[in-house]
């Protein structure tokens, strides 16, 4: 039986998708705080919400993903992140988490992509700085 995922719109820029919070924190950065197991259904709902937020943004978008409280990612959920990453409007995806579980999860997500616009950091600040720097590089070009 398919799991029903509740999506709650908190504001124009913030949604609750299952237990995940999804927020447009910057004109071109979406923060996803992944909480608990990421099932197939949750990943699909998460993508829809991301697409809604991306539609509000002019130009490219970046993702900041918090894996500190993240549980297991199903294969489809990982594939959904790859899809998000492969979208035309997506520039960079920075994943972060303090503990080794987060690192393993990030490696499994990134490993399946084969792209270099994915990177893992221990701390949120480092991840954010990288995203800003990378966007600057692109803007400089």
């Amino acid at each position, binding site marked *: 039986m398919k799991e029903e995922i509740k999506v709650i719109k908190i504001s124009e820029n913030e949604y609750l998708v299952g237990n995940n919070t999804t927020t447009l924190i910057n004109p071109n950065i979406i923060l996803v705080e992944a909480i608990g197991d990421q099932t197939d259904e949750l990943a699909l709902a998460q993508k829809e919400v991301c697409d809604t937020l991306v539609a509000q943004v002019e130009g490219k978008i970046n993702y900041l993903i918090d894996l500190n409280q993240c549980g297991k990612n199903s294969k489809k959920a990982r594939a959904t992140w790859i899809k998000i990453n492969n979208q035309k409007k997506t520039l960079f995806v920075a994943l972060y988490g303090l503990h080794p579980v987060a*690192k393993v*999860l990030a490696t499994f997500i990134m490993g399946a992509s084969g792209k270099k616009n994915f990177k893992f950091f221990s701390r949120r600040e480092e991840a954010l700085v990288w995203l800003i720097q990378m966007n600057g590089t692109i803007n400089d070009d």
Partner: protein
Amino acid sequence: MLEKEPDIKRIEELIDALMKVARGDYSIQVPLSGENDHLDALAMGFNLMVDDIGSSKKIEKENEKIKRLNKQLEEAKKAAEESNRLKSIFISNLSHEIRTPMNGIIGFANLLNEDDISTETRKNYTQIIVNSSNQLLRIIDDILEISRLETKQVKLDEQVVNINDFMFELFNIFNLKSKESKIPIYLKRALPDEYSNAYTDRLKLSKILCNLLENALKFTNSGHIEFGYVCNDVEIEFYVKDTGIGINKEKQKSIFGRFSQVDSALSKKSGGLGLGLAIASENAALLGGKIRVISEEGSGSTFYLSVPFKQVDKQIVDNKTGTAELNNKFKIIIAEDEEVNLLYLETLLKKINRNIHIIQASNGEEAIDLCKRNYPVDLVLMDVKLPVLNGLEATRKIKQIYPDLPVIAQSAYTSAHEIENAKQAGANGYITKPIVKEKLFEVLEKYIYVKNND
């Protein structure tokens, strides 16, 4: 650091899970402690890897399923193409088969109109027209029959059939044809006459066996044809065995399908629409049975027809036919390996006295066995030259077991030495081939009637 009791337990859980995966269980998952430490990371990595392997295996299985389906589709496509090809050949054959007799009918009907033909020629033309019309009628009958069979319009008409008599009638018909083509035909029957009554559809059985025998004659250029049956309590299996051209393995698969004839070049030579075996197969199904073939190209074919054996209680037949009690019949074992000689003896014996029950043995050992199984027996007619165990040895053994049972040696050997050998073996008498009715009558009078009058 890992020497803590809970850590060791978690490592053991991981090892257990690994072993389950090694045994092919990809549903296993290691629980995480929630401490997000290295062991949890290891467990998470393990769980994700198992998920990936499991789904790869699932994909592999699905791929195999798709491959199988593709193969089935490929085979179905080939079958459809083959069916289409055979249909084209069939149409071409049909045209040829219809045009040939039509040519005869139209051509000779026109010739009949000519004024200057004699009465004899006119009769000759008329006969050709009649023959051609009959040929045409047979083609139409075949087409109509396969159509009726396929639309399930044909019903069974079961009645009591004496299988031995029925087979003998077939033998008589095909023996004449086999003489024309100089291919000897032999008949083997497994049951004594009074036990060979069965409920079946005589006409359908006849159609099937006639088709098999006609094919055997058509496709056998040298050697012989043998037909007969074997049976058990539930099934009777008829067979037609030939030493003809045989059928290769590939063609054997499609031989019972419509429009199939082993070789289209041969079909032109031998004629026919290739519907015969399809009709036979449909009729066999209608009788609750099936046809199969065992064949080797160049070495001949054996066709088997298995149908349920609905044996009729012999008492019922007795009551219906009003024949005398079979128990009062004289029981004679004929040990003879040549079918023609056997039939000759059987015919002679039945002409002399219809109240004789004949049991056939094709070798010396079978003769001994049949004596034991059917005792008391009134007489044994023993051919001297028999396979497996020769007639003289068989006579010696029978006489050891049943000293009073009369055994008459019969042979084409006529020398005094041979006759003496037979006497030494214990034979009560000796008749030479060709056997004459009067001589046989003398033997019967001496050993059966006298004995029974005692």
